[in-house]
C-alpha cells in the first residue's frame, strides 16, 4: 500500500510531468486560457492517461515481451494511445458536445501529448512494473498534469488583465510563469526517493 502512495505522490508532485520533467507542454500552454476548458481537458487527459498506461503495460507484458519484440514498444504504444484517444473523443462528442467544441483540435491532439507516451515508456522501463503500479503511475501522472493545468489556467486568467509589457503578452509571459511555477515545484525535490 505504501508503495502505491509513494508512486502517486512522486508522480503528482516530486516528478511532476509538466513542471519537473517538461513533458506535455503543448496542451499546458494551449488549453490554459480558461479554467473551465482546462478542467474539461484535465478530465479527458486523466481518462486517456490512466487507460493508456494500463493498456501499454498489458501490451508490453502479454505481447511484446513473450514475442521478444521489445524494440517495437514505441510504435505499438502509439497505436494503443490512438485507440484510447479515439474512444474518449467519441464519448465526449456524445456526452458533452459543448466541451467537444471548446476543446476542438486539442482533444485528438492528446494522441500526440508527449506526457501520454512518456508515461507508457517510462513505466515499462521500471523493473518492478506491475498492473497496479502502472495504473497508479498513469493516474498519478494525470493528476499532476491536471493539477498544474488548472492552477496555471486560473493564474493566466488573472495575468490576462494585468498590465504586462507589450512585448511579453500572451505565450511569453505564460512561459515565464510556467518557469516560476517550475522553480516553486523544485521545493518538492528530495521529498521521496524511489
Amino acid at each position, binding site marked *: 500500500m505504501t508503495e502505491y502512495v509513494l508512486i502517486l505522490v512522486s508522480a503528482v508532485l516530486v516528478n511532476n510531468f509538466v513542471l519537473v520533467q517538461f513533458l506535455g507542454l503543448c496542451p499546458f500552454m494551449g488549453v490554459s486560457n480558461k*479554467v473551465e476548458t482546462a478542467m474539461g481537458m484535465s478530465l479527458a487527459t486523466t481518462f486517456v492517461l490512466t487507460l493508456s498506461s494500463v493498456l501499454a503495460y498489458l501490451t508490453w507484458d502479454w505481447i511484446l515481451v513473450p514475442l521478444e519484440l521489445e524494440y517495437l514498444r514505441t510504435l505499438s504504444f502509439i497505436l494503443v494511445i490512438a485507440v484510447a484517444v479515439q474512444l474518449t473523443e467519441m464519448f465526449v462528442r456524445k456526452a458533452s458536445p459543448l466541451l467537444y467544441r471548446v476543446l476542438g483540435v486539442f482533444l485528438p491532439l492528446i494522441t500526440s501529448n508527449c506526457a501520454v507516451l512518456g508515461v507508457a515508456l517510462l513505466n515499462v522501463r521500471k523493473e518492478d512494473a506491475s498492473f497496479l503500479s502502472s495504473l497508479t503511475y498513469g493516474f498519478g501522472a494525470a493528476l499532476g498534469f491536471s493539477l498544474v493545468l488548472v*492552477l496555471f489556467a486560473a493564474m493566466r486568467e488573472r495575468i490576462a488583465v494585468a498590465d504586462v*509589457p507589450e512585448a511579453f503578452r500572451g505565450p511569453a509571459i505564460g512561459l515565464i510563469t510556467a518557469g516560476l511555477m517550475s*522553480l*516553486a515545484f*523544485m521545493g*518538492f525535490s528530495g521529498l521521496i526517493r524511489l
Partner: protein
Amino acid sequence: MNLISVTSPHTTGPSRTQRVMAQVLLATLPGLAVLCGLFGWGSLINVVWACAAALACEAAVLRLRGKPVGFHLADGSALVTAVLLALAIPPTAPWWLTLVGVGFAIIFAKQLYGGLGMNPFNPAMAGYVLLLISFPVDMTRWLPPFEAPDLATSLQLFLGRDHGIDALTGATPLDSLRTWAGDAAALAAQPALHGTFAGLGWEWVNLAFLAGGLWLLWRRVITWHIPAALLGALALCALPFWLHDSARFASPLFHLFSGAAMFGAFFIATDPVSAATSRTGRLIYAALIGVLIWVIRSFGGYPDAMAFAVLLLNLAAPTIDYYTQPRSYGHSKPKRGIGG
C-alpha cells in the same frame, strides 16, 4: 449615516501605499537589529546594497516602459522587496548574489507582470528561490550566532574575497536537525539546537520578527488571518509527530522559532497582492503554507521551506480565489466546476 460635513479646503493624506510600505519597513527594524547583533554587519550591508540595486532595476524598467519613474519609485514597494530579500539572504553573501536575486525579483517577478499590484508571485521569494537553486552553497553559508565578525571582515565577504569563509560558517538549527534527525544522542550533542527555548540564536531573530509583526497587526497594516493560520497549521502538524517520536521530529515550539517562520508568517505570506483575496481564501492559503513548511522541513531536500511554500501557494492563490469567491448580496453562490 456619517458623511464628511466640513467645507473645503481639504488636506489630503500622503499616498496610502507609501504609508503601508513605510510601516512594513519600520517593522523589519527589530529583526534587522537582532540579525546584525548575532551575525555582524553583513545583513545591514546587504539591505543597503539591495535597496540601491532594486531602485536602479525598477527605474530602468519604468524608463523602458515610458512610465513616470519618480511616481512609481516613491511608492516604496521596490524597497520592501529589496529589504525582505536581503533579510533572507545569509550575511556572508557577496555583492553579486544580492544583485542577481534583486534583479530577478524586480524585473522578472514584478515588472514583467505590470508592476505593483499585478505580480502573481511574491517577488522577494521568487528571487530567493532562484538564488537557492542556482547557488546552493553561497545561500547556506550562515555564521554561528554570537560570534559576529567585525566590519572589515563583513566588507571583505561582501566584496567576494574569500577569507577562509568555510572556517567561519556554522550549521543553523534547521541544518543540524536535518542532518541528525532520528539520532537522539547526536541531537543532544548539537549546540545549535539548544538555545534558551528553541534553536540557538535564531529564537531571538524570530522573536524580533514576531514583535515587528505584532506591531504591524496593531497598526492594522495586516490582518490576523494569515499569520495565525500559518503558524497554527505549522504547530498542529508538528505536535502529533513530535509526541510520537521526539528524536526524529522537532517540537512545535522549535518549528515556530526556527528559520524564517515568524519572518515569513508576518512579512512574506501577508503580501496582499500574491495572497488569496477573501478571508476564507486567506485562511486556506496560509494553513496550506504552514503544512507545506512542515512537510518539506521534515521530509524534503531543503532545511527550510518558507520560500518554496509561499511560491507554491502563490501559484494556487487564483484557484483558491476561484473556489472561495464570496456570495454577493442578492445573488446565489456562483456555480463552479469540479467540487464547486
